[in-house]
């Protein structure tokens, strides 16, 4: 099987005045279709830089990045935008939904930048994506009428709507409490079971236990790349949590 994503000896240098910061110092790995990979590392390990490169928002200083059979290192801004539009789905830590815009319109957003998709098709696919995250009943709510977990689910639907080859999540549970985090992880695991490839950046070790493979970066180098023998089931973990405390006024 060919990898869906392949990086070879990726380096990324930033010029900070006189100094050059080596954020990535030659990292290589492949991700295969259907994998659920967490990328771990402390702050300064280069995981954000890695995610920006994987997300085609940044280009490596050297090395190769092949996404879905396409070399991306030499592509121009507009071509990278096309790849983001057609092959990638993003989930951010702070959801990044457009305020005062309904859930369904937020989910439709990526499809607006693909002129081949009609308004009717856009609407149909957005509803389908919202169903996958269990929010079809809230599709006409605006973000501030939704809880944090619901907002993140809308954001996941938005990442699904263009049927990407890989979903990239950046600390997607970072703003959520444990219960809600596990709920979100349930959705990611369910999507992975349906065949979606997921790369999930996190610094929380317990989140990594829900994935099939963990890549650890340190100081711009690949430190560990291990298959998880025992993948924790998010649903079971969620049910094992103590019930939420009831507050009485």
């Amino acid at each position, binding site marked *: 099987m060919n990898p869906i994503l392949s990086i070879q000896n990726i380096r990324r240098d930033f010029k900070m005045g006189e100094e050059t910061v080596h954020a990535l110092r030659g990292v290589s790995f492949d991700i295969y279709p259907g994998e659920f990979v967490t990328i771990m590392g402390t702050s300064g390990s280069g995981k954000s830089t890695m995610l920006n490169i994987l997300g085609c*928002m940044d280009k490596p200083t050297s090395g190769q990045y092949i996404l879905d059979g396409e070399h991306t290192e030499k592509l121009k801004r*507009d071509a990278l935008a096309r790849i983001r539009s057609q092959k990638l789905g993003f989930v951010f830590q702070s959801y990044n939904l457009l305020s005062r815009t309904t859930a369904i319109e937020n989910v439709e*957003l*990526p499809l*607006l930048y693909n*002129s081949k998709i009609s308004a009717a098709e856009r609407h149909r696919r957005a509803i389908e994506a919202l169903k996958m995250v269990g929010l079809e009943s809230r599709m006409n709510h605006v973000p501030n009428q939704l809880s944090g977990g619901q907002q993140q689910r809308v954001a996941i639907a*938005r990442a699904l709507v263009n049927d990407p080859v890989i979903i990239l999540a950046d600390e997607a549970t970072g703003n959520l409490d444990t219960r809600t985090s596990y709920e979100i992880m349930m959705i990611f695991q369910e999507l992975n079971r349906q065949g979606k490839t997921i790369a999930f950046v996190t610094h929380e070790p317990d989140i990594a236990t829900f994935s099939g493979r963990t890549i650890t970066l340190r100081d711009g180098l690949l430190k560990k790349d291990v298959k998880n023998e025992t993948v924790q089931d998010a649903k079971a973990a969620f049910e094992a949590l103590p019930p939420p405390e009831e507050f009485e006024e």
Partner: protein
Amino acid sequence: MSPLTLIKISLRALLRNRMRTFLSVLGIVIGVAAVITMVAMGEGSKKSIKEQMTAMGTNAIIIMPNRDRRGGVQMESTESLEEADVIAIRENATYINGVSPMITVGGQAIVGNNNSPTALSGVSADYLKIRNYEIEDGVMFDDQADRMAKVCVIGQTVVKNLFPEGDPIGKTIRYKSIPLKVIGTLKAKGSGDFGQDNDDVIFTPYQTVMKRFNATTNIRQIYANSIGEGYAAQATEEIMGILKERRSWTKPTDPFRVFTQEEMIQMVTSTSDMLSLVLTAIAGISLFVGGIGIMNIMYVSVTERTKEIGLRMAIGARGRDILLQFLFESVIISLLGGAIGIALGIAASETVKIAMNWPMSVSITSVIVSFGVCFATGVFFGWYPARKASRLDPIEALRFE
């Protein structure tokens, strides 16, 4: 992204900041309304001047003796006009359809206890056509039948002064003791643009003036009527040719001076053009300031929505998509301002017209040009903020707080 979607997105963004949008639109509204009103004012005054001049006869040509200068002293020309010149022009000129001498006598017209300090004008029947006079009652005298006849045709001011009870036809007025029978009255024309009263006139056959009042064969001025607008130059040349030929004229200077009404109109309207240009320029500056207002607000909007721009880019928007989104916003502001401004400008022009009785004329050209300028303003002032937005780095933009 389809234009319709872009318009929807831009409109939504604008509606989100209603007050801000309203103020930016207001800047353009004021600018455009000012331009429309100022142009209407300029056009109106020009039109009114032109109408007054037309009332005097647009095709009129006035011929009078040239003045010689000898040793710095202005002298009467040795050449004078005479009846034979009038007849020669009438018979030979092809660009002329009316010609009349004009000889005036100063004095008072008297009827009983009433008098009127009106100059007596010796003219031929063609004079009515040349100066756009019309008979109201009675008839105009005939050049041949009424040669030297003691008859006259009077304007409404004279009617008022001499015949307060009305019905002047058939009555007799005395002018320098000579009785003149009133055979016709003229329709009222009102005052001209130089303040003269066009109805304060008494017309009598020119031969009557020449023989009975002045005892001279000299004619001070000849009025002619060219066959239509735009023929003044040919008519002038032709008349000059006829006059020179009759005198076997060989000197390089012309024996007579010729004024055409067209030249006068051009002279007056060019002044008015200058004035309206200045007014329009001032109004245009306010439109420019409105455009700066748009630019300012668009810069604020781009900065404020940096994170949104980053998100849109992350999910696949190209720089061009972002550019168009912001450009549409500024163009919508400016076109909305333009449309309201045009409506307001027209309303203001009509109000001034009715309330202050000023001549105002809203020109279609100014409306179309204003709308075009608004579009250009939106694009021009929206361009830099939109380009700034389109060139943002998605990573930086997403991190923006």
